[in-house]
């Protein structure tokens, strides 16, 4: 259960459908850097419901064949630069979605249901680029079109959380998209800031924010593992992100970023 990051990410192979959280909910940047150092190809990313630095890096190094997401965003700095470049170059397939549709797809998988139903969407061009979605007439009411979103069942979910105990229970607090992500995915890898001595389920207050070990395959210790993204204790390293966005505008700048922050052995 408890392993090194390198051993943990061995669950992620070429072609894996990999679920990742948004920048604010606990992105395992430590595991992402380890993944880039290790290499691999053909990843299919699915963001619940959007991504930023993590997706942009994995796309930039050419490890991603496809991404399903509601956005690849750097906030005020706009679209992920390597994401945009890969699309322009035609080297990346994008399954554009909207946040609640991705939530709905994960929730269908969580329930073992073949699909979810949602309002909205009718008349959006997302319908045109998503032939895997369906519009049907609501069987309960006449002349009422509704959208159906098929279940999204990732091979692996990868995220970072504040702590885990040695039995594999992970404290996620109020970041409950991580619970849904783990439920919907076949396997889950969590990196954590620290190990909790004791049983997270023994105390009702902690249990309320705990993902049970049943859903977790690997836990790796990675203190501050969301850096440069926000964690429950630290805000986003805005200067680092600004630097990334500037560098990543070009292939050469991106390579420089990789070299400086990921491929050098001292980087975590």
């Amino acid at each position, binding site marked *: 259960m408890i392993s090194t990051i390198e051993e943990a990410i061995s669950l992620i192979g070429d072609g894996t459908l990999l679920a990742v959280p*948004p920048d*604010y*909910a606990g992105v395992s940047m430590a595991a992402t850097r380890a993944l880039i150092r290790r290499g691999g190809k053909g990843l299919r990313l699915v963001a*619940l*419901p*959007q991504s930023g630095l993590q997706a942009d890096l994995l796309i930039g190094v050419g490890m991603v064949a496809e991404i399903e*997401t*509601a*956005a*690849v*965003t*750097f*906030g*005020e700095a*706009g*679209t*992920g630069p390597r*994401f*945009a470049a890969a*699309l*322009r170059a*035609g080297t990346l*397939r*994008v399954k*554009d*979605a*909207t*946040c*609640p*549709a991705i*939530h709905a797809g994960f*929730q269908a998988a969580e329930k073992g249901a073949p699909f979810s139903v*949602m*309002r*909205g*969407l*009718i*008349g*959006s*061009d*997302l319908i045109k*680029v998503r032939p895997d979605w369906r519009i049907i007439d609501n069987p309960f009411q006449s*002349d*009422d*079109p*509704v959208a159906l979103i098929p279940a999204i069942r990732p091979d692996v979910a990868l995220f970072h959380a504040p702590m885990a105990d040695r039995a594999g229970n992970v404290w996620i607090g*109020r*970041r*409950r*998209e*991580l*619970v*849904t992500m783990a439920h919907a995915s076949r396997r889950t890898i969590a990196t954590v800031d620290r190990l909790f001595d004791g049983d997270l389920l023994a105390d009702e207050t902690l249990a309320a924010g705990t993902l049970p070990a049943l859903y977790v395959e690997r836990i790796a210790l990675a203190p501050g593992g969301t850096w440069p993204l926000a964690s429950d204790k630290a805000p986003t390293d805005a200067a680092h992100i600004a630097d990334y966005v500037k560098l990543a505008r070009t292939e050469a700048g991106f390579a420089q970023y990789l070299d400086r922050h990921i491929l050098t052995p001292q980087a975590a």
Partner: protein
Amino acid sequence: MEAEELLIGLVAELIGDAGHVAVGANSPIPAVAALLAQSRRPGMRVSLLSSRRHNFFTDGGRELFDCAGQGRLDAFFLSGGQIDGQANINLVGIGDPAKPETRFPGSFGSAYLYYVVPKVILFRLEHSRRTLVEKVDFISAPGTSPENVYRPGGPIALVTSLCRFDFDRKRGRFRLASLHPGHSLEEVRDCTGFDFEVSGELRETALPDPAALALMRGPIAAEISEIYPAFAARLSGAA
């Protein structure tokens, strides 16, 4: 800061008496406007999604959308890389979506919230023929829907650096409602890629009153410094 203060006052007016208003990330002007609107109506709930203190959600990222679907969210802000005259918004890109010339970040929650939130305020400062177009290249979310589509919500207005447009849902068209001080109808026509009506009572956008200015420069600037430190500093420095 005068331009920003004007926009804050305008947006607060558009929020009106909404029971619950939510503001997404990277939106300092709507955030301050929401808190200003709240100061006038103490029962109002304001969710600043990028704040920890002003964000009461505890059910993960889906709760905003579920809350809206339940009819518990009355006002929200959307923008667009392109916005057209029918209030269609494009957050995806220009050109073939599979191989776009320009790629925007993505549709976020627009293809749902635009349908279910009663007061959606479109907020796009850049007022140009590049952003305000006749027809968007990609409809992330449509401004209007046929009668048979479930749609309790939709756009009420578009706020830019030049003016306020109100949206007429029945006619599916914008109507110029007020011009910000120093701007003219001619300038707006020049910079807008779509046709629009002009209100018979076209006014100048009103400046916030001294009480509102004191609030935004004082307690509200302090409150948002958690998430927008630079903006808060400029706002409180404007006093």
